[in-house]
């Protein structure tokens, strides 16, 4: 938080809100495509969450810096250009880190471009706020997205595969719930988490 100046409290607020109150997955229900598709293992979920958070952070930074320079008529096109650039960079970086990881994330890395979460943060926040706040916003949203994706991935991997980060959790002969690694399992798990999240939220508001 070196760049924070007079708005320390507000910046922290911007960070916290993405984690819980405005969690991109559990509250805003944004970016469902990667959430459902790449959350079949904890590792995939973590990698996807990190990649998205990175793109979100970089695009928010750039959009915030350039916010007075970009004419409003072409702002969406410019945002897409910026986002696409960082997605491509992420794509190459992941390939350079591990071919296997790149293979299991597949087309969903390129599809970060169309993750409405990123565009919505650029349009709704970064283009209207200073650099410090935009960074905190991106970090909060990114971590919130990562957290949600990880919640899904952990449940799906444990039930669907009997493992956690590839580590075997159960003795041999564990019956995997195959549906959990299939797309349908993504919907089930997301629904269950939304249910829990909303219940907790309701109880909190009631008390």
């Amino acid at each position: 938080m070196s760049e924070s100046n007079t708005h320390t409290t507000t910046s922290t607020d911007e960070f916290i809100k993405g984690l819980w109150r405005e969690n991109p997955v559990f509250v805003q229900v944004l970016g469902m495509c990667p959430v459902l598709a790449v959350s079949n293992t904890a590792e995939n979920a973590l990698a996807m969450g990190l990649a998205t958070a990175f793109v979100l952070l970089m695009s928010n930074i750039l959009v915030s810096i350039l916010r007075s320079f970009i004419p409003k008529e072409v702002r969406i096109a410019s945002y897409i250009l910026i986002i696409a650039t960082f997605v491509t960079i992420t794509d190459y970086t992941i390939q350079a880190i591990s071919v296997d990881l790149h293979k299991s994330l597949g087309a969903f890395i390129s599809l970060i471009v169309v993750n409405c979460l990123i565009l919505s943060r650029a349009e709704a926040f970064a283009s209207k706020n200073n650099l410090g706040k935009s960074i905190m916003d991106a970090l909060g949203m990114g971590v919130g997205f990562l957290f949600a994706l990880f919640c899904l991935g952990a449940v799906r991997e444990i039930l669907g595969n009997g493992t956690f980060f590839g580590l075997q959790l159960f003795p041999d002969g564990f019956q995997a719930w195959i549906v959990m690694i299939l797309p349908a399992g993504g919907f089930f798990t997301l629904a269950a988490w939304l249910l829990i999240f909303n219940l907790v939220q309701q109880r909190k508001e009631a008390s």
Partner: protein
Amino acid sequence: MSEPASIPMTSNTKMLSAMVGIGIFCGLLIVLTYEGTLPRVERLRAEALERAIFKVLPGINETKTFSFSDGQFIQTDQSEGTVIYAGYDEAGDFKGIAIEASGQGYADIIKILYGYDPINQIVIGFYVLESKETPGLGDKIEKDENFLANFTALDVTLDDTKSNLINSVIPVKSGTKENAWEVDGITGATISSRAIAEIIDKSAKQWLPIINQNIAQFNE
């Protein structure tokens, strides 16, 4: 069609310069990353392929890539187009050939690599390069030990004219394998295991005759 600036809006030049500016900047970033990661990406890819070749041709220690054109196998450095990989042991003796093949599985195209031993006329190894088969069912083709055991000595002997397999590679129901050219299926992954047998059969019928007719070219 031109609409003059009756509505107050940013001038075209400014929009253009903004877009071009961002475009150039982004392009630069992408090119830099691409150049920066390319060597490592290529090395990783080559390593992955190498690992697969070593897996399907047990006992080898060096591989060479050959491409086929004009009825000849020519050694090449590229791994694009239709190429096969010859494997050699420590003494430099030619041991076998790894061939890439693909075909329709249950979910999508399955890409496999299999090892061919021309001396004993058998398939000696098998590895799935790419598959989107259903996790838990179809992806047993990568893990099921009984199934993989099919490909330690799968008979693909050619007839005397060296142009046809004596026996086609055929899939059979799990547990009913009787002959060396049959592929024992997997219960719960019938379609995927059948697909593998058919892919190997098709590819073997295409490649084995030309490999055997030009076998001397690998020994150089």
